[in-house]
């Protein structure tokens, strides 16, 4: 890894969902990036990109402004969510313009251009598609709609997964079909969403995989919630949780999920302490 990359000032935008409900994915992101030699900062003023609001028709220009203020000082922002990354790229300038704030739109475009979805950051910025991971399980990968169609991550996540040691990666049938999450779509059109979910679960179960992974915890919350309800015995993990897994540290496959109180902090003990965050901006 070159010196240039080491001197990059990299921030993690964890997303509101991971911050609130899926901290494992956030911890895995920190661990993976540090293993690859990156010093990661987590500015505490961050909250939410506003995607859920925007996709429901509520344009929260203040959240756009907040994202821009918090992250404009960094060289790169890593987002372990294709959906949020796509919203930051495409929706932030639009929301700013809808509010008549052209200056913010221009700043949002600038911050958006250095905001990277995780697999894009690993491959395009760090230049690696082998992160030294080990995960001896049968895994299937669901390419989320926003990762493929809005963000265009292409086969980056699969390239990363193929290089994981011990993995038995199986293709998901009808992988190009939406899982039916769609944010508030799942609430506003519950019957249609449930029908799409049922088909996606059938496809997942057909693969015989132990683990379903994806680059968006939101879609996984929907599919995983359905799989748990029907007791399918398939677990969901964020892509980064597999990539962070190595032979001698961090084994989400071995960890008893969240059934043991206090287990999560224990298994995230690592050699390196997280980088001290300087005074949070904003």
């Amino acid at each position: 890894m070159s010196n240039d990359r080491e001197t990059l000032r990299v921030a993690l935008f964890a997303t509101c969902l991971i911050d609130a409900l899926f901290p494992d994915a956030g911890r895995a992101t920190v661990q993976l990036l540090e293993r690859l030699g990156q010093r990661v900062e987590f500015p505490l003023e961050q909250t939410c990109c506003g995607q859920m609001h925007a996709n429901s028709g509520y344009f929260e220009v203040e959240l756009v402004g907040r994202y821009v203020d918090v992250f404009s000082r960094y060289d790169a922002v890593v987002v372990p969510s294709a959906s949020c990354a796509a919203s930051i790229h495409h929706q932030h300038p639009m929301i700013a313009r809808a509010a008549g704030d052209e200056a913010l739109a221009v700043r949002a475009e600038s911050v958006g251009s250095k905001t990277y979805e995780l697999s894009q950051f690993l491959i395009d910025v760090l230049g690696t598609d082998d992160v030294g991971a080990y995960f001896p399980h049968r895994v299937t990968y669901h390419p989320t709609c926003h990762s493929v169609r809005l963000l265009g991550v292409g086969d980056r996540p699969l390239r990363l997964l193929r290089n994981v040691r011990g993995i038995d990666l199986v293709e998901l049938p009808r992988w190009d079909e939406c899982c039916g999450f769609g944010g508030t779509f799942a609430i506003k059109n519950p019957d249609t969403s449930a029908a799409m979910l049922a088909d996606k679960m059938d496809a997942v179960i057909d693969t015989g995989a132990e683990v379903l992974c994806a680059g968006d915890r939101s879609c996984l919350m929907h599919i995983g919630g359905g799989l748990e309800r029907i007791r399918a015995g398939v677990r969901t993990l964020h892509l980064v949780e597999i990539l962070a897994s190595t032979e001698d540290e961090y084994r989400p496959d071995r960890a008893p999920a969240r059934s043991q109180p206090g287990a999560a902090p224990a298994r995230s003990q690592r050699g390196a302490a997280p980088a001290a965050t300087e005074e949070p901006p904003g």
Partner: protein
Amino acid sequence: MSSGETIWTDDPPFPANAKRAVNNAQLRRNIRKATTTIRERRANLVGEMPDWQELRTSGAAIKDEVLRNLDRYLEQFEAAATGRGAQVHWARDADEANSIVASLVAATGETEVIKVKSMATQEIGLVRALAERGIAAYETDLAELIIQLGHDRPSHIVVPAIHKNRAEIREIFLKEMNDAPADLSDDPQALAEAARQHLRRKFFEAKVAISGANFAIAETGSLLVAESEGNGRMCLTLPDTLISVVGIEKLLPTFRDLEVFLQLLPRSSTGERMNPYNSVWTGVTPGDGPQNVHVILLDNGRTNVLRDEVGRQALRCIRCAACLNVCPVYERTGGHAYGATYPGPIGAVLTPQLVGVEHASELPFASSLCGYCYEVCPVKIDIPTVLVKLRHDAVRTGRHPVEGALFGAAGAAMKGRRRWTRALRLAPLMRFARRGGPPPLSRWTSVRNLPEPPDQSFRDWWVRQHESAREVIRERKRQ
């Protein structure tokens, strides 16, 4: 103003309609089978075109050029078509268009007309309007015939009877087609043959035909109709009088522009390199085809769409229905659930703009925003972005105060670090509603569990790690 049948006002809103459709297993099988077939065929044919993206870019640019200068192209078309012997009429809305057609038919003294499939005439509810004035209009496209005989409504832009399988179509023919053979089988070939026999005499006797147009050429005043069966050619060539209802957005600047659209349209719509028949006519040709040629240029809400800088791209649409065929929502609900002439993703962006978002406020939400529609659209309509824009317009009509308050509260919590940190500490409460809860939560938990909440948020973990790291550093310094 009347928008005719742009929306079916007797229908419940999308979510309720969709619920009924999703629970109809036969319907879902029919639609899934048909859309899967056409999706694969389209993908193969698009795959063999190395310049597909360049064609899409040109198609979008040509349509944008038309929209930016629509007044000029409309006048140019009118002058060219009139110069070649056509009579050009203008209709502000559905009622006006229907009245013009009815009076033109009345002037011929005829009480029966034959029809080519046309979305514009669907949209204005022409067949019903003519029936109210004592004029019988016979649909001649096979699928439209199935719909008309079955007292049904179209559910797809290109194949309106896609919700019916062969067995159901056979039943309709046996019940409603007076000259159907008693031993009619459900073989599509036999069904097509029955339609041929049924319509042949009508084609030969009709004096008036009504069509739409896929494209109108401003430069030459020409119209083009693309079709497969030959019913279109029958209507366009055998009668004495031809009346074409054409949306004002159907224009192309030049004849040359067809070189783009005749490549984009057949591959996108029916998954063919070229559909069996395209007919191009320009006004009246002495000794060939109808000698009374009328063109009705229809607004019916299109100028509303044109006014919206984000939404106007929906007027690029060439009605290929590729977006319907790939849409995961359409595949589960079928077209009727949309309660409108234009179903599917394009309908969800076009319909609310044509009639005003307050009259179709559920349609922009009838999508998971998966983006497949945008990927296949031959004229690059960014349907997801237009949907989001229309959702924004819809919530501003103030029809969902409770939802608005919830989003407002969430937004407020996200606008400050302390508030957000405190809000996240409420997450463990979710533990009590993982498998059930009051509405609207129950719409989630009816089929899926909520996640097991973590013991601490990511940020709380980070802060703790961060603090312990500082302690380590301080410790080292002390040593």
